């Protein structure tokens, strides 16, 4: 074989190689007859691939001359590219782009007729045919993407502006999903995870309810400029009255999140956009069809860093237009941006709320501080005036007292009698002023409060139990007054009872029994402390509550006196008695409020 021959191509091998290719390709010989063709070409022509070899390829292309200048005239220099049409078996014209290149081929049959024809006869042509529709479609898609980018940009700027309330943002999202310059879905529904985090709940929806409405809205909007704000406001106005139907639908849309196979929940958790065709079977889809009316629809999750916040459901229920890949792609892009805007808005509101709280707290603190300062000043003033008033009292007593003495000593006809009496009167007035002032300044005594007596008795006895630690005294509490309550100063009553208990304990230093018993009596409640000690001498009985009387070697002798005074101040009575079978009883009775019977 010569060097030139080594460059020859065995086109039978090539033919076998690209027969199965999906790319439309063919090889023709110098006569324009098909030597080899691919499946892809066969598909374009609508013919079986085996039927192609031997055919004249110029029959398929229009205009045929265009091809003739290349392969048929043997002048093909390769790299030629032509825009032609291809006529398929149905007679349809398919726009194609044809690229060709020529080469020398080894004769199919060695030593055959081709051998004698020389190099020109061995010239073959390779055609690559491209379906121009595919190319056009790709260009369209690219163009569509480019066209939407400014809008998406505007949307993102607008949504991030933080001047919109959450409701406005939701509205804007839906407008963009449906508006002519936006994603062009007919209807859009927005569902958010509710506050409890347990379900997806329909929030808001946009879309016409029938074809007439749709026609009117879309006509209204046809010539609007693509500026988002104008779009939002104009769209808002033209759909204001048409949303009733879709909003009635969206209010019914509720999906518990625990239903995790449900299409909406799943789309949200997997962060994937979904297209639901009329024949798809999936949990929850039938429910959605029930709400939406059965046509195809798209679902896009709204997800933020911390997790899913909701979904957008969109469909073309009015126009019936198919939901394309591009629509889906845009819906997802848009949903991502919307989710970010929703989060942004929520964070912003949260911040705003905290700011308001902080401001309020700050204001409150300032006020409190001022009040405190004022009170402090008042309190200092009060103390000062109390001291001054007191200091004035003694001199006034002397002045007024002697003026009265003088008045008495002087004869009424004496003019000095009148003057002395004036001094006495004026001093009396000053004393009155001071009295009122001190009365005002003096802090109020602790007020009596409604007290459940038994609670007080039990509490006091239990506290006293600690005192009995290590002693041989047994303490029993028999509280029998239930919930009966009376007006008293609990601390003082406690003091009385403690005193009685202490006496009972001291009366039986070597052990014994102490019982605290409360019982309702006529008009009041009685509390007794019974001990098992030696009791007291009958002669001492009357003096037990007198001041400074004490049978004990130590002690001020004021204890029981004070007890008696406290009980008396409460309108009650105290008493003591020896028990018939040994020991003593100390008791007091406190009156019940009259209206309580």
């Amino acid at each position, binding site marked *: 074989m010569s060097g030139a021959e080594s460059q020859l191509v065995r086109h039978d091998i090539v033919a076998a190689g690209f027969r199965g290719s999906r790319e439309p390709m063919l090889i023709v010989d110098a006569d324009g007859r098909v030597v080899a063709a691919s499946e892809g070409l066969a598909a374009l022509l609508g013919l079986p691939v085996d039927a192609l070899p031997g055919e004249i390829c110029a029959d398929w292309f229009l205009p045929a001359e265009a091809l003739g200048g290349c392969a048929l005239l043997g002048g093909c220099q390769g790299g030629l590219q032509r825009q032609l049409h291809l006529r398929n078996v149905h007679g349809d014209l398919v726009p194609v782009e044809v690229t060709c290149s020529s080469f020398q081929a080894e004769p199919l049959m060695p030593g055959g007729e081709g051998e004698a024809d020389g190099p020109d006869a061995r010239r073959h042509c390779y055609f690559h045919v491209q379906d121009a529709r595919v190319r056009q479609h790709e260009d369209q898609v690219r163009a569509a993407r480019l066209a939407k980018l400014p809008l998406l940009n505007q949307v993102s700027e607008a949504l991030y502006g933080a001047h919109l309330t959450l409701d406005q943002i939701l509205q804007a999202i839906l407008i963009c999903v449906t508006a002519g310059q936006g994603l062009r879905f007919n209807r859009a529904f927005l569902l958010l995870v509710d506050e409890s985090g347990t379900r997806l709940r329909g929030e808001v929806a946009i879309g016409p309810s029938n074809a007439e409405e749709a026609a009117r809205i879309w006509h209204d909007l046809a010539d609007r400029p693509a500026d988002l704000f104008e779009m939002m406001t104009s769209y808002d106005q033209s759909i204001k009255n048409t949303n009733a139907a879709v909003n009635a639908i969206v209010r019914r849309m509720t999906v518990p999140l625990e239903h995790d196979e449900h299409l909406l929940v799943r789309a949200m958790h997997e962060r994937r956009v979904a297209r639901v065709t009329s024949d798809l079977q999936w949990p929850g889809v039938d429910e959605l069809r029930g709400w939406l009316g059965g046509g195809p629809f798209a679902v896009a999750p709204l997800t933020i860093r911390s997790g899913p916040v909701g979904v957008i459901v969109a469909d073309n229920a009015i126009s019936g237009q198919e939901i394309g890949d591009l629509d889906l792609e845009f819906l997802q892009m848009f949903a991502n941006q919307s989710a970010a805007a929703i989060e942004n808005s929520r964070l912003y509101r949260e911040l705003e709320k905290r700011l308001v709280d902080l401001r309020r707290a700050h204001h409150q603190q300032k006020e409190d501080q001022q009040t405190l300062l004022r009170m402090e000043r008042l309190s200092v003033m009060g103390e000062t005036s109390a001291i001054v008033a007191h200091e004035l009292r003694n001199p006034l007593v002397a002045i007024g*007292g002697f003026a009265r003495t003088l008045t008495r000593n002087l004869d009424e006809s004496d003019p000095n009698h009148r003057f002395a009496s004036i001094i006495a009167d004026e001093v009396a007035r000053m004393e009155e002023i001071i009295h009122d002032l001190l009365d005002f300044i003096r802090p109020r*005594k602790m007020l009596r409060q409604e007290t459940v007596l038994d609670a007080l008795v039990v509490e006091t006895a239990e506290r006293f139990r600690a005192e009995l630690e290590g002693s041989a005294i047994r303490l029993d509490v028999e509280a029998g007054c239930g919930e009966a309550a009376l007006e008293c100063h609990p601390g003082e009553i406690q003091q009385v009872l403690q005193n009685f208990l202490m006496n009972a304990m001291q009366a039986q230093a070597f052990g014994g029994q102490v019982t605290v018993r409360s019982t309702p009596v006529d008009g009041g409640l009685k509390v007794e402390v019974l001990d098992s000690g030696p009791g007291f001498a009958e002669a001492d009985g009357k003096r037990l509550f007198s*001041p*400074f009387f004490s049978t004990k070697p130590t002690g001020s002798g*004021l204890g029981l006196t004070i007890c008696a*005074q406290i009980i008396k101040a409460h309108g009650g009575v105290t008493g003591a008695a020896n028990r018939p079978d040994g020991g003593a009883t100390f008791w007091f009775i406190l009156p019940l409020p009259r209206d309580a019977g």
Partner: protein
Amino acid sequence: MAKVLIVDDEPHLRLLYETELRRAGYETMTASNAAQGLEFVDTMRPDLVVLDIRMAGMDGIEALQRILERNNSIPVVLNTAFSSYRDNYLTWAADAYVTKSSDVTELLETVKNILDGRLAARS
């Protein structure tokens, strides 16, 4: 004639009470502080003590306890400018509590009532 001991650290008030009590027919003696008052309780055996509370040195409340410790049959009238002592239970052992006033009528009446009561009880 009943003897009344006046314990007060204000000389002018002592003079006023002395004047008025004498006019009312009592024999009076005065002490300018609590310690002196206690001494007079022992030595002079008064029938009644008019006792100021706020005094330099020992105050009237302590004096009251000491008087009652020595002799709890002597009636004591607390006579003070401070009505707030009424709330102090240590003053409850006194027979009466009178708020100082340029009008000594209340003091005189209180003294009279107590002494008349004692007299009636004794007879």
